[in-house]
């Protein structure tokens, strides 16, 4: 059934109430204007932990809520509506997925309770260039004694500027372009040789470029299988992509709703501009697109809950569609607001900025359309 169940509806209501009270768009402006280096409010993150959100993808037997991907997506969607900045995607979705599925007992013990408690932020570092290209990973992890030595640079690591540890994809074999030879490592950011350059970003949340300059780790740092880490990386990225798709759906819905409110209120040429049929038809078309994106997102989240390794088609459909629809929604929102939409005085521009970041991360609309085509045989 492509509908939320009762528990999920309750979670949605709770999430909506929480973000509108604790993390309205004004909270993002505060992070921006006060130049908070973490890119999020740690107090808010602790409150999210109290709500249980940090454990949404951690199984109950490991101290989490085990709400699954639909639950996580519902939270992302609501955060998308208020542009809530938090390490939810990096930590509660991607890192929690990696560790709860493939972490060693020691890794789980060390990190899962800390994630659930809202005390640890863990970033995932994959891309090395301007485009998302996991298979293109070139960074090497050379064997070194019993462990590995990591060298290379990771571009635009989400929450890398605030992370306690980084899940990093590197090559223990093979070369850029191949999907074999991947290994994932969990490296504490305080490790010698690892440095982070904070990036000031369009969405005010920041990110980091991480440089690994001969960073030495023991074999215990490996998450999952040495040389065969790509399938796990795909699942972790799947979590990130679905989370972003859900957030983009929320982003699109909210900028759409605000635009409809404006159309019902603003007067020009002696009438409410929402009465102009040309705008009505564009609004109606956009509504259809927003509806279609929502469905694709729900289908992807359910597919992830059913089988994370088999959900990649559904996830790519969702990320592609949500990215392009959120873009259209942002464009129409600015245009229909007219001049005021161009000013920093209202929030519409902030939705456009975050849309650009979320649609670019972990594969843009075309990256995922390409994956859909491959999955469908052409």
């Amino acid at each position, binding site marked *: 059934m492509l509908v939320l169940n009762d528990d999920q509806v309750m979670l949605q209501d709770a999430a909506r109430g929480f973000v509108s009270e604790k993390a309205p768009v004004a909270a993002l402006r505060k992070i921006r204007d006060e130049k908070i280096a973490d890119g999020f409010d740690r107090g808010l993150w602790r409150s999210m932990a109290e709500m249980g959100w940090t454990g949404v993808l951690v199984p109950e037997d490991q101290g989490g809520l085990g709400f699954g991907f639909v639950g996580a997506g519902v939270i992302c969607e609501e955060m998308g509506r208020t542009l809530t900045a938090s390490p939810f995607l990096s930590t509660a979705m991607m890192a929690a997925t990696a560790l709860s599925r493939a972490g060693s007992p020691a890794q789980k013990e060390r990190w899962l309770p800390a994630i659930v408690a809202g005390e640890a932020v863990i970033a995932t570092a994959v891309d090395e260039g301007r485009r998302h290209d996991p298979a293109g990973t070139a960074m090497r992890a050379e064997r070194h004694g019993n462990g590995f030595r990591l060298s290379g640079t990771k571009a635009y690591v989400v929450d890398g500027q605030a992370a306690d540890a980084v899940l990093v994809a590197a090559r223990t074999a093979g070369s850029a372009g191949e999907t074999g030879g991947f290994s994932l490592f969990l490296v504490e950011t305080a490790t010698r040789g690892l440095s982070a350059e904070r990036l000031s970003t369009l969405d005010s949340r920041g990110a980091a470029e991480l440089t690994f300059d001969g960073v030495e780790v023991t074999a215990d740092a490996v998450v999952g299988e040495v040389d065969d880490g790509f399938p796990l990386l795909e699942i972790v990225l799947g979590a990130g992509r679905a989370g972003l798709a859900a957030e983009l759906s929320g982003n699109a819905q909210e900028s759409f709703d605000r635009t409809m409110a404006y159309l*019902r209120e603003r007067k020009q040429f002696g009438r409410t501009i929402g009465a102009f049929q040309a705008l009505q038809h564009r609004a109606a078309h956009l509504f259809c697109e927003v509806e279609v994106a929502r469905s694709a997102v729900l289908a992807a989240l359910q597919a992830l809950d059913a089988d994370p390794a088999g959900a990649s088609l559904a996830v790519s459909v969702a990320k592609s569609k949500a990215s392009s629809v959120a873009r259209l929604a942002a464009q129409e929102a600015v245009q229909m607001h007219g001049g005021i939409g161009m000013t920093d005085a209202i929030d519409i521009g902030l939705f456009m900025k975050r849309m650009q970041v979320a649609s670019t991360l972990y594969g843009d609309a*075309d990256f995922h359309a390409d994956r859909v*085509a491959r999955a469908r045989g052409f």
Partner: protein
Amino acid sequence: MDALEAFRRETRAWLDANCPAEMRTPVSGDDDICWGGRNFVFKSEAQKVWLARMAERGWTVPGWPKAYGGGGLSHEEVKVLKEEMRAIGARSPLESFGIWMLGPALLAFGSEEQKQEHLPRIARGEIRWCQGYSEPNAGSDLASLQTRAEDAGDHFVVTGSKIWTSYADKADMIFCLVRTDFSAPKHLGISFLLFDMTWPGVSTKPILLISGKSPFCETFFDGVKVPKANLVGTLNRGWDIAKYLLTHEREMIGGGGGGLLGGRSPGQVAAQEIGTDGEGKLADAFLRADVARAEVDALAFAATMARYKDEAASGGKGVGDRSAVLKYYGTELNKRRHELLMRTAGHEGLEWEGARSNDGERPRGWLRTKANSIEGGTSEVMLDIVAKRLLQLPNA
């Protein structure tokens, strides 16, 4: 084992015993469809037997009440029946506008006598119906229709013409919107009549489309006498029935998207016809970008049809005005699909007659889809519905 599972087993066994082997092969064209009616010529004994057996159980209209020739099945049971039929590739025993349109209208608005008279005959495939809605000068503004039914005591005298009456030249009877009050506001002077296509004054003329021959006709009424008993619902309130059926039709067109989106996607067709490169990618890179995006939209739309259906099922309400979303989006997608198929075909898509192009199947299919966003309510009307009813945007 729950009751539904028991029903499934029973159904499977019955279908296995009763569905003729020939009726488990795919339909290859309009010719293979059983439309029923007084003059219908069965294509084979198997087709005739299959209709008779299914009609006997009421399974031509499985969800209708048994009292009117239906199967009396629950929503879940109907779903099971369809699943089991699909599992063995069983053809539909009967298609008709009686099943799709008039039946639901009579169940909702008809008198007991009308239900008794018409529904069982629809269920058994004895009477083939056509629909008399559109008129040449009404178009999207259906309510401005001008076909008049004058009150002549115990009967009406119907004069005017209808357009886009599918299979009017093959139908036995017509359900028809007529104007019974010219002084009332246009939506309040319309009535819903049933009459026989063989009655004096009725004539039809097929319409040639840009895609070639079509089932559409123009239908002319020249002083047709229709007994007042053939009025469905209240006099001058036929618009309520029309609206009910228009929403119903939109849901079918948009939501029965199997038909719109069925079969191979344009990307898959292109990969087969044009070929792929060493990495398995469609060899035409520009086309590939477009078929890939169309695939994303088609899959996302399929999820939307499923979601609306599931929401309707779990919420206990129909899809309602959101059927306009399905109708608009589904038909626009289908037009795009055929544009992509034409790009794929290149020169081969330019052939109009001849065996190797199957008499221009691809370009005719492409041209035919241009009507998708016109028939059953134009895309513009759908967008108006979305804007006004779903988004509550103000009137001009």
